[in-house]
């Protein structure tokens, strides 16, 4: 049963990431996703001290705000200060991450967060942390419920606004002509990326979220030119990574999240070589 919950959690993270990651790659925003996954840290810490507990809703709010702030700062330094994008990303996320680490150490002892868990969370604990209904029966692991909610939100967002996302992704100037604000969708997407990061960091950690954002989507991007196929394919790659990652970690007795990323990397490598040799 534990294996089932862990693979399910991994798959939920992987599918959420794969869908958002596909859009990030097409918009050439992957590194902004990377930046967000680090810079949500101070948001989480501050939310923790406002709410006084690791209540998920506050953490989601805190992380969401920080994610949007990060996106804004990167754009601001780039446009108003004429700082090149790579440096703007690098300065912004390291600054916020350093702030987060300082806050964590300052309140050390109070918080159940430490750097370890941020960098590579522990998915193996997922089945232990259960949510109970009013009769005291276990409904399921907390992480699974939160992640299902986040995935549902992402699916709803993509299905409802597919057209807007499609147009702003592929043809920003056309979007402008027909009156769709590229900016608004940009920020909405980044808000979702921060939600996903924070919902998954307890189980897979910030940096591994980045891997799941990029690797499955990049592998799918190599194979297809169609957005819908890419979304499906990258989700499938994500689930495969979760499934085989679990067994790989079982084999070598190592971190499950690390193993999932390793498998995602292997899937990308296979796609890379297939595409190379077909040419």
């Amino acid at each position, binding site marked *: 049963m534990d294996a089932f919950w862990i693979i399910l959690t991994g798959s939920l993270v992987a599918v959420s990431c794969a869908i958002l990651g596909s859009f990030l790659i097409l918009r050439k925003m992957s590194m902004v996703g990377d930046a967000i996954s680090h810079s949500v840290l101070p948001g989480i810490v501050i939310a923790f001290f406002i709410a006084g507990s690791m209540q998920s809703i506050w953490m989601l709010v805190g992380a969401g705000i920080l994610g949007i702030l990060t996106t804004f700062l990167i754009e601001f330094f780039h446009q108003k200060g004429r700082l090149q994008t790579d440096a703007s990303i690098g300065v912004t996320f390291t*600054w916020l991450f350093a702030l987060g*680490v300082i806050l964590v150490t300052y309140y050390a002892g109070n918080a159940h967060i430490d750097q370890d868990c941020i960098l590579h969370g522990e998915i193996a604990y997922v089945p232990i942390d259960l949510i109970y209904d009013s009769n005291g029966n276990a409904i399921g692991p907390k992480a699974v419920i939160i992640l299902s909610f986040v995935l549902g939100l992402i699916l709803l967002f993509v299905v409802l606004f597919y057209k807007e996302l499609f147009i702003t992704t592929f043809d920003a100037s056309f979007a402008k002509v027909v009156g769709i604000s590229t900016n608004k969708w940009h920020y909405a997407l980044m808000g979702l990326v921060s939600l996903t990061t924070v919902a998954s960091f307890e189980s897979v950690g910030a940096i591994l979220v*980045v*891997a799941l954002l990029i690797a499955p989507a*990049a592998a799918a991007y190599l194979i297809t030119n169609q957005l819908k196929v890419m979304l499906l394919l990258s989700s499938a790659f994500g689930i495969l990574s979760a499934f085989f990652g679990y067994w790989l970690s079982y084999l070598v007795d*190592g971190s499950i999240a690390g193993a999932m*990323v*390793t498998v995602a990397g292997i899937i990308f490598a296979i796609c890379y070589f297939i595409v190379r040799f077909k040419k």
Partner: protein
Amino acid sequence: METLIEFFTFQYPNIKYVVFGTILLSISSAVVGCFTFIKKKSLVGDVISHAVLPGICLSFLATGSKDPFFLIIGAFISGWLSILVMDAIIQNTKIKEDAATGLSLSVFFGVGILLMTYIQHSGNASQSGLDTFLFGKAAALVGKDLLAFSIIAVIVLLTVLLFYKEFKLISFDPQFAKVIGLPIRRLEMILTSITVLAVVTGIQAVGVVLMAAMLITPAAAARFWTNRLSRMILLSSAFGAFSGISGAFISYSAPSMPTGPWMVMILSVIALVSFFFAPGKGILIRQWRRFSIRRQLLEENLLKTFYRIGENSGEHFNTVAIDDLQLVRNFSPAQLTKGLRKLLVNGYVSRNNNSWFLTNEGFEKGKRITRLHRLWELYLTKYLRIAPDHVHEDADTIEHVITPELEARLEKLLEYPTSDPHHSEIPK
């Protein structure tokens, strides 16, 4: 104050190690960072710092020892490999730089985490302490680390000194460097190697994530103060060194505080101050310049409109109602109130209840703008053969920037004309 004296007189040898260690690290990464910044590849530092992890684990597995030199060799190899993988993906597929960067960074790191947890779970007693590579241990540097850091810092700085001209060329203008026959591939290799070296050592002080800042942030801050590479390098090393000392001091006076994150914090504050307040390139001065140009345009357009109205009625100093201004040119109400108030303060117009009239200075200025506008229209039609009904927009833009010298040349070229293409008079 006492702590400050205690700190700077190095009463404990440990402080000396920490201070000199962090300064050496900060300077070598700040110097290398300037080149990656100019090549617009700042995030390469982030990739390398994540990618060294599998190398460290593998070299530990292979040798079974934690000797920093073995670990650094492993880290060096996997750092290099990550750059090669990234470049291969960019060159051979349609995947762009951003995704290739993130992919290489996160997959290498994931593999590293898998290996590290494998080592931890395998029950090897000597493994503890490998994870200092993840989070850094600046406050716990010892003599042996300092020796390793100094050797590497000297290698990095000497290489930059030796190949300064070449690195400068391949960073700014690789095409030109190729044309004049520089061995670009070999130079790139050397530059990447010292970048990897700087990262591999720096990581031990500040950790994987914050290493990127040690490369990027001082260079980005220095860029706002100067256009010369040599000065940029000096400045960013100074920023780096300062952050090293203050980071060490903060964690000395408040031992629970981590050195690495504070170093990055101080660097970031320097960078933020530079972004906003640097003379010439800072955000504030840029915004101010934009603002004052917009104000100048508004003022001159208003005066021009006054002049035009006076021209139509034949009487330049009559009062003009706000509605009349808006009939000639479309100003927003906010622009009108702001612009007219500014003109009043500067003495270009005077006020009579709700109507306005030009002063002598205002009249002269309005006349000059109108004159420049019409001269330019004439020039466009006469010399560039643009239809008279297409020249107005362009003249509207350029009338604000024509200097008196250019005005004189235009006048001479057009043989002291008296009327523009629309048969309006060009005022003297």
